[in-house]
């Protein structure tokens, strides 16, 4: 529209004098509306989502208490506790970045099974001898472009090729790992670049650089979801694609962009993971898709789309990392650990269903009593 919204709003003038505050808002920017009240800074991720996130923090506290009870010798040392928390966050960093992208895809009504494979492909591609010759910048650029490109291929297949997301990304999972194996000739490619390798070993103010990257991606994701038109479109497209389409939102283009975003996050994660291992190979980031989806679900995002939070997903990843850490410090097996994780996924979904069930029942009862 060439003319601004303020000059073109048409409202029946038959009743209700227009709120002067609203008129002011229409003329300039952001006056507080009369009855709507001022927004809290955290609105959007608030309400029910905030309560759920508090519950997840409660789970973390419980896990901490279990840790303290089983290894009181270690937990009695505050320095060790701090160091261990950083270890957990570092452990969560790569999966966390992937999970942010996954959260967007799932809120948007889709699913991305290919994230682990994209991480592997981007990691392998950025560590070929040819790419490494361009230095750290070239490697980062390559990883991000490869991730984004693969994500856009997913998005194109789903949005314009009308493939079911599950099938399109499952195919990509297989194909991308295949391509990664082809490029690497099934060899582990050592990263010779000290700058890249340094990403995993550098600490700033005592906190690992990887944790800063995670924090930056989470913060960017939160802003994108809760404060931008992109985020609003994501919720609309996932919540009711037909309503979004009839409101003039380009659902297909947005779907394409969601998978592109997921791929982009995978590209960032590929660099982080390569730095940690100082190498890349076609089998890296194995089963990351499942970890990411599980974290998103535990975080309270509806698998059917339309509702979810970035903070919840982050807490989901941290809970997983804490469990892994808990088993490691107690010297328990990976197998037992996986069984507990499986149980936690089921428990989280059950709790979600109960909450959602009672809520929707409540609304159904009251639907006709609020008119």
């Amino acid at each position: 529209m060439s003319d601004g919204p303020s000059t073109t709003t048409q409202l029946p003038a038959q009743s209700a004098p227009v709120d002067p505050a609203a008129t002011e808002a229409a003329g300039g920017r952001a006056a507080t509306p009369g009855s709507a009240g001022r927004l809290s800074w955290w609105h959007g991720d608030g309400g029910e989502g905030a309560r759920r996130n508090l519950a997840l923090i409660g789970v973390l506290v419980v896990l901490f208490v279990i840790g303290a009870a089983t290894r009181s010798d270690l937990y009695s040392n505050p320095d060790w506790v701090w160091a261990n928390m950083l270890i957990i966050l570092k452990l969560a960093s790569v999966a966390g970045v992937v999970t942010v992208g996954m959260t967007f895809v799932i809120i948007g009504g889709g699913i991305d099974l290919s994230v682990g494979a994209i991480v592997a492909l981007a990691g392998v591609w950025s560590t070929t001898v040819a790419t490494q010759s361009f230095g750290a910048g070239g490697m980062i650029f390559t990883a991000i472009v490869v991730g984004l490109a693969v994500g856009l291929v997913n998005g194109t297949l789903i949005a314009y090729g009308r493939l079911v997301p599950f099938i399109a990304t499952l195919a990509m999972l297989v194909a991308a790992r295949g391509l990664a194996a082809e490029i690497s000739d099934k060899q582990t490619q050592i990263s010779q670049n000290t700058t890249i390798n340094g990403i995993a070993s550098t600490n700033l103010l005592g906190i690992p650089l990887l944790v800063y990257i995670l924090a930056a991606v989470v913060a960017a994701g939160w802003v994108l979801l809760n404060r931008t038109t992109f985020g609003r479109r994501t919720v609309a497209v996932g919540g009711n694609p037909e309503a979004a389409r009839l409101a003039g939102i380009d659902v297909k283009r947005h779907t394409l962009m969601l998978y592109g975003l997921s791929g982009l996050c995978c590209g960032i994660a590929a660099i982080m993971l390569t730095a940690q291992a100082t190498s890349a190979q076609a089998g890296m980031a194995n089963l990351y898709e499942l970890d990411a989806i599980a974290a998103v679900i535990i975080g309270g995002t509806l698998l059917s789309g339309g509702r979810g939070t970035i903070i919840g997903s982050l807490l989901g990843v941290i809970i997983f990392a804490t469990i892994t850490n808990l088993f490691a410090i107690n010297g328990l097996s990976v197998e037992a650990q996986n069984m507990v994780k499986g149980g936690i996924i089921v428990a989280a979904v059950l709790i979600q269903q109960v909450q959602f069930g009672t809520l929707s029942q409540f609304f159904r009862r009251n639907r006709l009593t609020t008119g």
Partner: protein
Amino acid sequence: MSEQPESAPLVEAPADTVKGEVVLRLTDVVKTFPGVRALDGVQLEVRAGEVHCLLGQNGAGKSTLIKVLAGVHRPDSGLVQWRGEPVAFANPQAAMRAGIATIYQELDLVEDLSVAENAFLGHEPRGFGFIRRGQMARRTRQILGRLGHAEIPPNRMVRALPAAGKQVVSMARALSHEARLIIMDEPSAVLAHDEVGNLFRIIRELTAQGIAVIYISHRLEEIREIGDRVTVLKDGRTTAANLSARDTPTRDLVSRMTGRSIEYVFPDRPDDSEVGAELLQVEGLTRAGEFADVSLTVRAGEIVGIAGLVGSGRSELLETIYGARRAESGTVRMSGRALRPGSVGAAVKAGLGMAPEERKSQALLLGEPIYRNVTLATFGRYARFGFTDATREQAEADRVAESLEMRPRDVRRAVRTLSGGNQQKVVVGRWLLGGTKLLLLDEPTRGVDVGARAELYQVIRQLAAEGVGVLLVSSEVPEVLGLADRVLVMREGRVVRTAPAAELDEDTVLDLVMAGSLEVTA
């Protein structure tokens, strides 16, 4: 068609319920939910063999009352007497077993099961652990015969039936339970005009067999036609009981529903209709199997109504103009500029807005706040550098809510919690923002109560007075005639008549819409 079918009725008309005897009596029934007193002293008396109509605005407590009777909710206090005995149904199955069947607005059928399987869902005739399919089909055929629909095959998938057929299956299910009371929640809302007559015929057959019917509808003319007595609810209370359905003046009924004395009124049509330049020009628009060679114009400030039955292609036409469907041939122009076919985005940019037929599935994000639904088409325009401005959006939505008298007024509440009329205001209100020049309205008052209807009519007329063109589709002929300046009548995908609304009357339009005269003037 009022005579009994040949085959022996499966359920005998209950011998102990002669017409006139009270089968259901509610005394001071109260039901509260957290924060809401949904029922606040309801009195109701239903006699065998009568059609008892429940009237009330959205939010008056009709649905809660139905759910109490159906065993979904248990009342907090008050007395429910069923055939003389005080009852408290523990669950819907108990109500069913007692002989109370409920047909909800959204029919609860399993689409991928057959007619017979749906009719006997949950109480299939069994033998040795197997379903007796033959017996089930035979009994279903008998019941369908009783309903005058022996032509529906019991083994047909419900998915393959039209809406009216599905409703018949719902009623067959009620009869399979040997129901003595059937509650129908807005049964006509899903039906086209000619199908309503069939529904009434079925209801008359049921009542002739001594079955009581509680009938809920927003359409007063239906209540006059089919109803015996009326009970009016307002704010969870019975404000009038056992009025005569035929003789009570409309003014009385409406005033008891609303507390106001308003008629089912349309705003005055301005005499010197200062319609502006041609806004929308549609030429030769065609989609095979839906509509063919439709040409029409809408001027600025003009309300053009499309009358036609469900299936006449009217909704499809609207969606095609809006770009939600791609035309096979023909053009759509806004102010002389051709719109890109099949692109909603282009249509919205050119100033079109649409309130689609199905509010919940096509227009609303039910879990999201009111303001985000109101700004769903415009949030991008309030945004700066891609950052949304929620404060500004709330202010705009608040203004819309105020001018449309939306209730509740808090625009941060989830749309799910609103009544149908208020949800429709959200959908229409969306296009009051952002400079909409032409508004396409598809059944804007479906499921909207009388009070909110009058408000919506006022809003639509006001928009036109401000220069917005309106293209309106409605199943209700009086609505089209009362609101529109010019009327197009559609039948089987073609425009069969275009005339100023003042030159048409309801009978003429109905005649054109249904069997139809041969006179074709495009």
